[in-house]
């Protein structure tokens, strides 16, 4: 995918719209880590995350004609990633509530236990565990802030929330995380 390495995002979008595989491949390569941080941060490091990651780029490809270039391509992709991941969280929540009597907290406990094969308590594992124990609406803002490094304003723009809501969620998430991290 060498020929588009130095191309700007508008050029990549135009070429992708013309069906250029190399151009879209370059977009995937440029933003795959960003999407992985969002999807895996919110869903956990699982095979589901990989599928959602693929869906993000497939949806991006099919909606590229709607991209006007007013916002950055990264922001546009980030919005798709957040929406698809939140949909998956809702779907999984419905699935679990249909087949078990577990409460929300227990569902997330299940997710954590599923990935907890090793005793090794490295930084990534600790972050994953802490995130999975958070309520999804807090997890989303924490992922944007902690893993993506977005400002509160950027987080509000991507999530389509008022700045005040983002600030209050961050503050409540911080309180929850303090309690969660004490136990880890």
């Amino acid at each position, binding site marked *: 995918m060498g020929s588009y390495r130095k191309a700007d995002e508008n050029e990549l979008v135009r070429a992708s719209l013309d069906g250029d595989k190399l151009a879209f491949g370059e977009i995937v390569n440029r933003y795959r880590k960003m999407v992985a941080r969002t999807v895996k941060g919110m869903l956990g490091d699982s095979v589901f995350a990989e599928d959602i*990651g693929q869906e993000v780029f497939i949806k991006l490809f099919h909606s590229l004609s709607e991209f006007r270039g007013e916002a950055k391509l990264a922001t546009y992709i980030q919005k798709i990633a957040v929406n698809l991941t939140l949909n998956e969280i809702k779907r999984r929540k419905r699935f679990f509530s249909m087949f078990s009597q577990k409460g929300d907290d227990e569902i997330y406990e299940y997710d954590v236990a599923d990935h907890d094969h090793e005793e090794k308590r490295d930084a990534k594992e600790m972050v994953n565990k802490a995130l999975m124990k958070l309520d999804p609406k807090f997890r989303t803002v924490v992922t944007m802030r*902690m*893993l993506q490094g977005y400002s509160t304003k950027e987080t509000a723009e991507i999530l389509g929330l008022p700045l005040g809501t983002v600030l209050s969620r961050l503050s409540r998430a911080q309180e929850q995380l303090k309690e969660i991290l004490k136990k880890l």
Partner: protein
Amino acid sequence: MKCSEVKNLIISSLDANSDPDGITRQLEEAGVSYDFSEGFSTRVIEKIFSAGLVVNRELEFVRNMSSVFYRIAISGVAAIVLLLISIYLMEGSISINSFLGLGDMSDESIVCLLTGN
């Protein structure tokens, strides 16, 4: 990086006045980084463009069907016109009765034909 340091980073990343970008970088250096598995891009591209191929094949099928329908429709119209001309030549008019082969029949003879009396 020690566990306690990572915990402090996580907590401080959520402060409204913190530098989230810097903290993200520090967390990445501590091993908190995410990526998809090897060959992710190739799989995405394959999924997108093989789906495109299916759509193209469907479009081609629809195009072929409409060209076949066009030919059938033209021959059908030609057959109908020929039939109407032959009816006109044989019966002298193109009424529904002559189309049904009842051109020179009266109502009574039809009743006789149907009842057998």
